[in-house]
């Protein structure tokens, strides 16, 4: 039991050390259904942006939450704020989310689920 507590604490530390506490966490849905709807391309846009110097963002994938007709979905979580979930995200929309939401902090209302 102690062992598992230790393992959990270590895991949490590892996650934090990877930048979990960045101001903004971005989750891209990556299940079969999401990928079929085009989430790989969306993920690539975010990865590209980080490679090109976008900072203060923790990028991660997640499984299908069950919002089939609105996939691909992208979630932006900020500590202390209500999570924002975007539906039907295309690469173009992803680029706009980066520009407007991640960089300028503007929530793009039309695409919010």
């Amino acid at each position, binding site marked *: *039991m102690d*062992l*598992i507590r230790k*393992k*959990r604490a*270590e*895991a*949490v530390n*590892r*996650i934090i050390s990877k930048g979990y506490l960045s101001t903004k966490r971005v989750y891209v*849905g990556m*299940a*079969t*259904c999401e*990928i079929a709807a085009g989430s790989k391309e969306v993920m690539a846009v975010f990865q590209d942006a980080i490679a090109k110097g976008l900072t203060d963002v923790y990028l*991660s*994938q*997640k*499984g*299908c*939450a*069950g*919002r*089939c*007709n609105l996939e691909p979905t992208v*979630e932006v*979580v900020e500590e*202390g*704020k*209500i*999570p*924002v*979930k975007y539906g039907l995200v295309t690469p173009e929309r992803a680029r706009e989310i980066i520009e407007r939401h991640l960089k300028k902090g503007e*929530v793009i*209302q039309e695409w*919010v*689920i």
Partner: protein
Amino acid sequence: MADKQYKLTFCDGSGCLKNHAREFRQLFEEELRRHQIQQNVQIHLSGCLGMCTKGPILIVNPGYIMYGNLRPEDAAEIVQEHLVNGRPVSRLIIQEDHLYNRFFRIFGDSEFFGRQMRIALRNCGVIDPEKIDDYLAMRGYEALAKVLTEMTPQQVIEEVKKSGLRGRGGAGFPTGLKWEYTAKQSDPEKYVICNADEGDPGAFMDRSAIEGDPHTVLEGMIIGGYAIGSRQGIIYIRAEYPLAVQRLKKAIEDARREGFLGERILGTDFSFDIRICLGAGAFVCGEETALIHSIEGFRGMPRPRPPYPSVSGLFGKPTLINNVETWANIPVIIIDGADWFSRIGTATSKGTKVFALAGKVRNTGLVEVPMGTTLRDIIFGIGGGIPNGKKFKAVQTGGPSGGCLPEKYLDTQIDYESLAKAGSIMGSGGMIVIDEDSCMVRMARFFVEFTQDESCGKCTPCREGTKRMLEILTRITRGQGKPGDIEKLERLGTMIQKASLCGLGQSAPNPVLSTIRNFREEYEEHIHQKKCRARECTALLSFVVQDNCVGCGACKRVCPVNAVSGNRKEKHSINPNLCIKCGQCYDACKFNAIAKV
């Protein structure tokens, strides 16, 4: 919606309502108005949150601050202190120490998720499924540690029995009992199997569960192995799920590296490992005895039971076989306790059930709801109702083994017994909503075509019987139905149900018999009046050009058999003798001038 400052979720489950949750909410709303901040908050009602003893419950987001045991006088304080001054009222906050329902913290999307309760899918769409760290952070493998260090195998079985968990793969057999039978066998060699064959057309619960949170399935299986005294687990999954397989493989490797799988797990005397077995994707291989044959390397054909796999299963050894979703529930039962788990649901069906909601509903998707939720709540609440202003006609549950329920059954509660009484089954979780545009005969035909195709051919009633049923149904949809066909279908259906070897055949007639029972008039119309009210059976339709035709010629150009004639800018016409009813003209017309009658 995200511009609202606060999202408040009030538990509206029956336990909380008994504790005057509604009165509390009304008071609360008055307070909001008094402070004139009602425009800054968004209020949601949720289904039972599983904390009935602490009701009324209020969750304030952001921050996921949970208030409990609320009394009328607390409303003013929470509004004033928390919502106006931004200082949560620590005296009223309750610490919840539960594994389930974390999604409230994550999902802003509470119309869809608020009415759900996520136990099996608690981490799906929340964590990164490929990182064991993410799972560990969500108290992953804590249930395993608890079991290995604090519980005897017998205690684990007692806990699962007490929880009232029943199999989620279709038949609903009590899971604890199955574990107990398998544990009782004296053979030292035993197997644990996870059934991830998922053959129902349109079902994707198990795939999503594995892709979203593979470790919980592994953890459940390891606990099962400990409880029955087995060293080897096998996950039988169809090769058509490559991503799920890949994530499982990664999860197994990671779990081995961290010492959750393999020799001497977590430093105890217990050793257990899991391997993956790929299936070719036959529906019948989901049936447990056929599945076992398939793993052994034989053709996937069922055999008569008893002996049940718990006595003689894989390689003749006692085998514990459960469905993906069943396994995913186990860690929660261990951590949150059987007492807690068994408070959710109805008298005979405990916990939650995952459904793949599909068909003619606004929000298609994966939903997990407490047992006892009504079909109406799922379809019109979470599902958001029927799109395009169409009328609800029926809901099909249980896939090719299930039945169609019309409107009068909408208030049926989801549990094994109630659905069976209404004439369908719980099944593994397929739920297809049908609107007035769908023909019930075609629907039945679709499922029989599927089962006929997937029948393994071992027993005659299923092999031949489904074939004959399909022939009759095909004739009816082509306008060649004869008087007496309905009775013949009923006779055949009952016979196949009674005489087939396995569940596939025994349940194959269900879609037909239930549509006959509930929509007999549609069958009769097809047979006697050669009419299909949903206008789906093209053979029973004719295509007619109406007066608003502008003579653009679009239909004429697409017709593959030159059945359309008419001069430019004049009304065209379709020659019924040439028309093959392919429908291309109907789709091509931009003026809705072609009617199906």
